[in-house]
């Protein structure tokens, strides 16, 4: 599923996300789900960038850049 993106956007959970410059991952997730990152540690959420999981320990050192596809998921009712 490839599509051409404006270079000022990332794709977050399938939707264009305006991005002027690389954004710290913790900042992005905190904006999406307030309260889900405490002291830099994700709570019940996980992230993949371009189909690769970002391990918890690597969040602090990770930024989201324009053109990247980000999935932010959590546990919901199911199964």
């Amino acid at each position, binding site marked *: 599923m490839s599509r051409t993106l404006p270079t000022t956007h990332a794709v977050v959970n*399938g939707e264009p996300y305006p991005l002027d410059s690389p954004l710290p991952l913790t900042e992005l997730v905190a904006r999406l789900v307030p309260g*889900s990152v405490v002291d830099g540690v994700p709570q*019940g959420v*996980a992230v993949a960038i371009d189909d690769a*999981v970002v391990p918890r320990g690597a969040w602090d050192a990770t930024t989201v850049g324009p053109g990247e596809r980000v999935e932010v998921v*959590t*546990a919901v009712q199911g*199964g």
Partner: protein
Amino acid sequence: MSGVLTIGGVELGSRLVMGTGGAPSLLALEDALVASGTELTTVAMRRVARQTSGGAAGDTSMWGLLERLGIRALPNTAGCFSVREAVLTAQLAREACGTDWVKLEVIADDVTLLPEPLGLVEAAEELVRDGFTVLPYCGDDPIVARRLEDVGCAAVMPLGAPIGSGLGILNPRNIEAIAAAASVPVILDAGIGTASDAALAMELGCDGVLLATAVTRAADPVRMARAMRLAVEAGHEAAGAGRIPRRERALASSSPEGRLDLAL
């Protein structure tokens, strides 16, 4: 409690594994989970809802619920139709839920919702290699169950009937064969409609039962959850007790000795 269920070296005090899909609200779900006595409960992984307000983050309240009840989460890969999707979803679940347990689903199509056996075995093998404790949702084919065990799954979870159908156990002989041959726990997953189905699964030799819809969509979910807990315990006890052989003819249970000889 009728014994414990040990999966991947972890002891669970209940042989009933609950799903959480279909509950009208988290509050109703909480009451049903408590009534079921379950210690292991499935969750699905989905994109976070955008722009949530308030402290609790969207559906992370599902996560909070299990934490509060002290129930171990069993993330699933529901909705995955390929090996790659299932593996990535399992890896995300490991990060989000802090567990390497996964209910592995590789579904063939969204009409039958039946497991796709080739992809399932492949994904299971890959996840086992990656350190996961894999509990695969599979068909009732004893050979597929054997392959899943061969690649290192911690349990096998054959279906009784299609997901959400409530048809019970369509092929009890296959379930019995899987349970007899397996050296890992066998958990009957999917198809349970009512308590007698759960009891039958245990009587056929299963080590546990996984169900969701039968409880969450029952008219009285809490009461049905309690029924399922009792049924699983009853079935397990009956299986351990050893049923009498089936006979073609009646067998008197009162001795004929000393009968009255009445001239009537």
